[in-house]
C-alpha cells in the first residue's frame, strides 16, 4: 500500500522558516553528508534522508528526528557537500524550529543545552565542573548521583590534569563570575529575543 507523500506544505514551511531551509532543494541525494559526519553511528537518518523526508512532506518524522539536535558543528559535511548545501545551518535551523514549535526531538541535548546556557547566563563562563554536574543532576538526585559515579574515572583524570576544579555539588562552591557580567547578560537577553528558538 502506497503511503501518501509529497504534500508540499511542509517543504514550503521549511524553505520559509528554517535557517538556510531553501538549501534543501539543492540536494541531489548523493549521501556524502551522512558519511562525513563524525556522529554517523548515532544518526538515525542523517542529513540526506532528512532532506528527502522534508521534500516528501514527512513533518512528524523530521521534527521528531533526534538527528537534528545531534550536530556538533564540525563543518565537515558543509565543506564537502557537492551541492554546497549549508548542512549545519539547516540542521541547527531545524532544531531551533522544532523547539520553537514545542517539539523536543532529543531531550538529552535540550537538557545539556540548558545546563550550558545556565552556566553562561549565571557566571559568564562554561565551568567544566558546573555544566556536567547540572546536566547529570537533571535526571533527578538519585539517577544523577549514579550517573556521576559512573563517570568518576573521567573526573579523576580531569582533576589530575587540572582541567577541572573539585566541587561537591552544583554551585558548591559557586563559580567565579566574569567581570562585566551585567553587560554580557544584556547582550544575551537581546540575542535571545532575536532568536527564533528558545534555548539550546
Amino acid at each position, binding site marked *: 500500500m502506497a503511503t501518501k507523500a509529497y504534500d508540499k506544505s511542509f517543504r514550503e514551511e521549511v524553505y520559509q522558516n528554517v535557517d538556510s531551509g531553501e538549501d534543501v532543494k539543492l540536494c*541531489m*541525494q*548523493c*549521501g*556524502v*553528508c*551522512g*558519511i*562525513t559526519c563524525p556522529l*554517523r553511528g548515532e544518526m538515525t*537518518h*542523517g542529513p*540526506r*534522508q532528512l532532506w528527502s523526508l522534508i521534500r516528501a512532506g514527512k513533518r512528524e518524522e523530521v521534527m521528531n528526528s533526534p538527528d537534528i539536535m545531534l550536530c556538533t558543528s564540525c563543518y565537515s559535511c558543509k*565543506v*564537502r557537500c*557537492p*551541492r*554546497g548545501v549549508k548542512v549545519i545551518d539547516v540542521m541547527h535551523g531545524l532544531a531551533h524550529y522544532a523547539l520553537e514549535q514545542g517539539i523536543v526531538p532529543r531531550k538529552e541535548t535540550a537538557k545539556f543545552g540548558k545546563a550550558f546556557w545556565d552556566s553562561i547566563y549565571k557566571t559568564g563562563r562554561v565551568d567544566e565542573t558546573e555544566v556536567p554536574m547540572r546536566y547529570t543532576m537533571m535526571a533527578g538526585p538519585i539517577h544523577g548521583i549514579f550517573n556521576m559515579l559512573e563517570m568518576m574515572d573521567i573526573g579523576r583524570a580531569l582533576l589530575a590534569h587540572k582541567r577541572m576544579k573539585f566541587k561537591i555539588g552544583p554551585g558548591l562552591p559557586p563559580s567565579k563570575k566574569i567581570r562585566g557580567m551585567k553587560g554580557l547578560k544584556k547582550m544575551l537577553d537581546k540575542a535571545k529575543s532575536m532568536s527564533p528558538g528558545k534555548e539550546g
Partner: protein
Amino acid sequence: MGQSILVVGGGMSGVSAALEAAEAGYDVVLVEKNPYLGGRVAQLHQYFPKLCPPYCGLEINFKRIKSNPRIKLYTMSEVTGIQGEAGNYKVTINQQPRYVNERCTVCGKCGEAVEATIPNPFDYGLGEIKAAYLPHEMAYPYRYVIDPSIVETEDGTKAKEACPYDAVVLDDTAKEVTEEAGAIVWAAGWSPYDISKVEYYNFNSSPDIISNVQMERLAASGGPTGGKIVKLSNGEAPKKVAFIQCAGSRDVNHLPFCSTICCLASLKQATYVREQLKDAEVTIYFIDIRAMDRNEDFYTKVKADEKISFVKSKIGLIEPGENGMLVLEGENTTTGERFKAEHDLVVLATGMQPNTDLSKIPADMVYDEYGFVQAAEGIFGAGTVRRPGEVHVSVQDGTSAALKAIQVVAGR
C-alpha cells in the same frame, strides 16, 4: 589558397580539424605540445562502446597527415602569443628542443646507452622510462626524444655516441617561430582533475588508489604492466575492484559540471577487469549513471554481468584498512544503510578539467566560470575546451570548428 588555418592541439579534435580543413583544400599549421600526436586518446586502451583500440582510427588519421602536403606540423610546441584579428593573425610558437633530428631511425641504440630514467609521462607517472625514449610504441612522429635532464650529463654524451646516424643533437635549443594565419582552432584538450584535492579520498595514501586515466595505462599492452591489471602495491591481481564515480565532478567545491565521459569510462574499465580476472568482483559507486544515447546499450550489457554491481552512493571516505585492503565508506541512498566496504583496488573516476581553465588562450577570449571557451570571431574552440565530451563529439566538434575557420579564410 591564401591564408592558413592554425590548429592548436594534436588530440582527437585538433587532428580532425586539421585534416578536415586540409582535405577541403586549405593550408593548415598544426601545433602540438607533446612530442607526438594523438593526445589523451593515444593513452587509452580501448574506446567505449565498441571496445576497440584508439590507434585503429589514429593510424588512418596519421596516414592522412603523412600523405597531405598541406599540413605543417610542430610538435613539442606551444602557442605563446597571438597578435592581430580575424583574417590576419600572427601567431608566436615556442618549440622546445627534442635533441633528436630527423635522421633518427628508431634503432633504439641511444635508449640502450643511457642509464638515467624519468617517470613515464605517457603512463601518468606509473612507470619509468629511459631518458632517451620513444614516447610510446605507436608514436607519430616516429622519432626518439631526449629528456632535457640528461643533455648536459654523461648520459647525454653516451646517447650521442651510441647513435650511428648522427641524430642526437645535444646543442639543440628552444626556437621561437611566427606563423601567419587567418583563423585559429583552439583544441588544447583537457587534463585529469588533480584528485588529491578531494582530500577524503586520500589518493596518495595507497598505490592501490588510482585514477581512471591510470587504469587505462594498466590495461594497455604498452603500459607499465604490459597490460596486466594488478595492484601496484604488490603486483598481485585485485579481487575486489571499486569504481568511484563523480570523483571531483558534479561538485561545487571541485568541478561543478558533469565530465560526461566518466560513467562510460568506468563501465568500460569494469569490462577490462572482468575480461582479465574471471573471479574479480567489481562495484561501481554512482550518483546517476549517465550512459547517453546509444551508449545505453553498453550499460545494459555491463549490468548483465553478475559480478559487476552498482551501488547508488557517493563514497565519502577511503582509508587504508587491514591486510592491504582499502575501506570505503558511503551511504547507500536506496536502502539508507551507511556501509563500510573493503576493496583491494580503487579506481577514482576523475573528471575532465578543460586545459583552458589551467592555461588561457593568449588572446582576448571569453570563458564560462569553469574555464570552457565561448564562441568568438576568428578563434574557435573545439572539443573538450568547449565542453566535456566523448571521442566522437570531439571529432564532430573539430570538423565543425574547421568549417568555421574556413568561413574566415575562404575567398581571402
